[in-house]
Structures are given as C-alpha cells and as structure tokens.
C-alpha cells in the first residue's frame, strides 16, 4: 500500500469509544466488516496515495461547503430517494485489493447513467476491466492504488464493459479474463471534470448528475464507523481512499457516500462525513457529466415518441431507458425507425434497441 507519514496503529475500539464519548458522540462506532480484518487487510482496501498534508478537519473547506446552497444547489440531496425513486446502484466489495478507485469510478458512471436518464434500469460496469486492464496498463496494481481522474480518462477514451463480460475478483490479474466481444458492450464517460476543492460545484454536480467521485484520508477510526456524521476523533492515518458521493445534507453539514467495503461496514455500506473532514472536498473530486453506452437494450416498452421542427430529430421513450434519440444520419432513417416504433407502441409490444453514443442504431420490433 502507499506509504504514510505516520506509523500505523492497530485499531483500538475501546480507545475510540472513549474518544467519541469525550467528543459528544458525533457518530457511532462498532464492529464492522473492516474491524474483523487484520490491519494489513484493512489498509490494502485503501487505494489512493494518501495526502497527509491535508488537515484532518479543514474549517475553511467546511465553511465553504456549508454555504454552497447559495450558489443554486438544493439544501439536501440523496440519490437513494429522489422523488421516491432510488437511482443508486448497489454496494459492492472490493475485497483484498486497493481497487477503490475502480469501484468509485464505475459507481459514478452507473449512477450518472441512471439519474440523467431518470431510469432505474440495471447497469453493472466492470471494475475488473477498469483496474486489471486500464490501470494495469498504467503500471497500477492492488498494492499501488490509482487515481479517479486517470480512471475516468480511460473510461472516456476506451470505455469499460459490463460486469458479466469481466466479473470482479480481488487480486492482481493480467486482463485475460476480459470477454473479447467487449467493444460491442461498453459504457463511456462523455465528459468529466476535476472539481477538487469546489464544494459548490460538488453539490451542483451531485444534484444535477447524481454522483461524484471523492477521495479522502482514512484514519483508523473510520474503519469502525457504523452510523452518524463521521468526524475524525482518534487514530493514525491509514491511507487514501476513493468512494462515490451520492448526496449531501446542509442541515447535518455532511456528504453522503457509498463505500466498497460490503454492506457489513458503515450504515449498510453507506456513510455520512462532515464538511471539511479528512480532505473530502480537496483531495481529488471528479464530476461526470454524461455516460453513453453501446449495447442492446432488450424488451423496451415504447411509452412516448417525440419530434419537433428540426429534421431527423426524433426521440423515443423506452420504459427502462428513458428518452433516447433515434439515429439522425438522415430524416429518412429516423422516420423509418419512428414508423416501426410507432407500430410497436400501438400494439404495446416490447422492442429491442441497439444504442450507441446516445442514439438508437438498430431496432427489433417483434
């Protein structure tokens, strides 16, 4: 794992409870999936080179985050409940490998895909390809970790396939398990931005696109977090870590994050961390502004069709997909697709759509 500047201390839950009590019990600690591990197993689950120069609590960053509402973002947001709909994908387990960057980056892509389309269609991207192929090509391994801006650069330029084309298992691999057909089933980031240190933009991005990636310094007490708003109270620096942030709450003064340490850690795999804590805003934060896929979308019920005064500008609403543009290579092509989808819609029959770069390229209407 990356080196730290302080000696690593084994987790001392009794000392932590005392420290939390002295601090007024800002959060609840206890036995988790991480406290059950040995120290070296815990630390390997961190996968970003730490930044010990960042303060454990940055008052200025906290204050800046607290007033971000003034810039137009809502006062609170939780991707698990947006108008009663949960757009977040599932909590995963990175296992015994410093691949948190792959998990945080795949998670932000999945969430942006779903939230920007207002769809809950299942999507599960391959962390294995992201880490064991793309990161490996940059010399990264389970013991070195990676960076989200590099992961998202690869996801933008090369794309990543779906989980079933390269299922994740923990431990360095040479990419040989990647399905050779992966170029025909992949997702790509269309645009992303490093917004480190800009809490207002973090809130804008989370509330508009669903999630951002974030990194922070992990101290020993974080491993035993169960619920509440985490603030570092005791323990040495263990390493740097990457997660996906899925919300925030100005009233509680915190970000809402999803970790990759199973549902047995934290609050069902989730956590809340105070504004300005452990470098959460300033370590490295990336916003993703769009995700496109190249894949067949089976069994879509067409619920709506749309066009306007622009030639070849026709959209269809698939029940799980949301709005998607029909191929706009020519008005004749898009009109042909419109006619077939209109027939399927009239019959309430499902269709298969092949989507690439945010438009439909091929249709089966049975």
């Amino acid at each position, binding site marked *: 794992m990356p080196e730290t500047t302080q000696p690593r201390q084994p987790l001392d839950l009794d000392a932590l409870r005392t420290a939390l009590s002295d601090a007024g019990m800002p959060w609840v600690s206890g036995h988790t999936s991480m406290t059950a591990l040995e120290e070296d197993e815990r630390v390997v689950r961190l996968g970003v080179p730490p930044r010990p120069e960042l303060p454990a609590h940055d008052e200025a960053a906290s204050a800046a985050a607290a007033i971000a509402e003034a810039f137009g973002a809502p006062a609170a947001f939780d991707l698990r409940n947006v108008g009663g709909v949960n757009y977040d994908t599932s909590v995963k387990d990175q296992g015994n490998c410093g691949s948190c960057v792959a998990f945080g980056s795949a998670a932000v892509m999945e969430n942006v895909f779903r939230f920007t*389309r207002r769809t809950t269609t299942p999507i599960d991207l391959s962390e294995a390809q992201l880490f064991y192929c793309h990161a490996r090509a940059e010399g990264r391994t389970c013991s070195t970790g990676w960076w989200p801006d590099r992961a998202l650069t690869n996801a933008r330029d090369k794309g990543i396939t779906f989980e079933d084309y390269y299922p994740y298992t923990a431990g360095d691999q040479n990419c040989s398990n990647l399905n050779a057909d992966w170029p025909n089933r992949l997702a790509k980031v269309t645009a992303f931005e490093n917004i480190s240190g800009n809490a207002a933009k973090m809130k804008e991005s989370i509330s508009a696109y669903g999630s951002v990636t974030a990194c922070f310094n992990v101290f020993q007490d974080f491993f035993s977090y169960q619920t509440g708003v985490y603030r570092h109270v005791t323990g040495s620096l263990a390493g740097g870590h990457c997660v996906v942030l899925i919300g925030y709450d100005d009233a509680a003064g915190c970000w809402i994050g999803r970790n990759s340490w199973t549902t047995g850690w934290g609050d069902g795999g989730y956590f809340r961390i105070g504004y300005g804590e452990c470098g959460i805003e300033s370590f490295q934060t990336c916003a993703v502004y769009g995700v496109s896929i190249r894949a067949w979308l089976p069994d879509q019920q067409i619920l709506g069709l*749309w*066009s306007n005064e622009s030639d070849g*500008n026709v959209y269809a*609403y698939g029940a799980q997909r949301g*709005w998607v543009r029909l191929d706009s290579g020519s008005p004749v092509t898009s*009109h042909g697709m419109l006619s077939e989808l*209109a027939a399927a819609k009239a019959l309430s029959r499902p269709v298969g759509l092949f989507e690439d770069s945010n438009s439909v390229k091929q249709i089966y209407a049975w």
Partner: protein
Amino acid sequence: MANTRKGSPTLTPPDLSTSSDLDVPGTSSPTAVSDAQLAALVAGSTPLAGPTLMPPTAAAGAAEAITGTWRSNVKIDALWTIDEPRNAWVHVVGLGWRKIYNGRDGAFQALTTLASQARQTNRPVNFREEADGMIYEIYLW
C-alpha cells in the same frame, strides 16, 4: 439527452399565391367542420390518464414554454391533407384545426406521422404551437 437542434424557425412561410415553386408549402386549409358534426363522425373515447413522463430535457421545456403555446393531454380526432407540398392539418378536440409545421420535409413527415399515430391509436398528445398557428413539436404518449 440534450436536444442540440432546438430553436424556433425565423422565416415566415412564403405565400403560395404569388409563387409557382412546387416545393413551396401549400396554403390551403380544411373547410370548417363544427364540433357537433365531428362528434357525429367520430366515435367517443374513454379519457386516458395524462402523461407522467419527463420531456427530453427540462431546460428545453422551459425554453419552449417561453416561445410557444403548449397544449397538454389533448386528442386528435380528424386529419386533413391536400396535394400541395407539406400541407397537412389535424383537428384537436376542443381546439379545432391546426396546421403541421411545414418548413422542412423531414420534420413535416415526422410530425405528421406522430399526429396520424395519435389519431389511429386514440392516444393523447402534448404539442407546441407557435404564433403562426402551426404545430412545431409533438409528444405522443
């Protein structure tokens, strides 16, 4: 997904009576038919639930609301066309005849297909009409 080709046309359709260009959109209009006459021709329909889906982009919707008039959850109960370029009309229940945008072949064809499909399947539509009285945008639900 963003509709990158938004915007209202800036040209007024040319007057066919002073032109011999066969590609110029036709200007004839359907003879007025009263609602009572239509009701006698068209079978009554059961009202359907209104649309609950998002438009392609919220931002686009906001822009459209400023530049045009939106009619929501309405039914089309008659169609009319004539052998003139891009000249088709729809009859909207409670509103009367409206002309389909005639500025471009591809857009005219797509909008006419959506309107015809709405008529055939008796499904509700949302549409945007501009100051020139034509329908520029249709949601078929």
